[in-house]
């Protein structure tokens, strides 16, 4: 079902694009980093759905990398750049 997968991907990407409003407005650094966390979660779910819809099992590994990188980004930001 590639059509359903593409529809889901478009919906979630629209969600992520709207979250950019919070990145632009802030007001604190925590708000902006929280939007980055949203990107990581939402995009790994998009990759999982695309791996099912397009029948591409390797995209599951890409989703795993996204999830792991979102973790490392957040911890590195808080512990090194901020506090």
């Amino acid at each position: 079902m590639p059509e359903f997968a593409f529809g889901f991907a478009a919906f979630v990407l629209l969600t992520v694009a709207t979250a950019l409003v919070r990145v632009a407005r802030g007001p604190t650094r925590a708000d902006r980093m929280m939007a980055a966390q949203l990107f990581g979660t939402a995009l790994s779910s998009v990759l999982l759905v695309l791996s099912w819809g397009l029948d591409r099992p390797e995209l599951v590994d890409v989703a795993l990398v996204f999830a792991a990188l979102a973790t490392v980004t957040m911890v590195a930001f808080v512990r090194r750049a901020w506090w």
Partner: protein
Amino acid sequence: MVVNVGVAALMCLGGLFFLAGLVGLLRFPDVYARIHAVTKADTLGLGLVATGVALTQASPVVAVKVLLIWMLTALSSGAAGHLLCRAAYLEEVDNGRREAL
């Protein structure tokens, strides 16, 4: 066919939770409430989507891998929400002196 309808329903429900997280991120009044909205609603959305994808996998190894992605996100978003809230709180009450907690 029945499995496909169930999988699509799980994915749509997951998408709704992403939408809920977005509304919380945009509309909640302060930074702690916004962090609270994103960590929980998004993790649940990814969990529903991952369950749906895992049900479609032929090999159980890949299905477990998909669910492990969700476990990793659940653990890490909890820890990340705590780290961010702590840093925001320390900045607010302590203004850089590192004594409050």
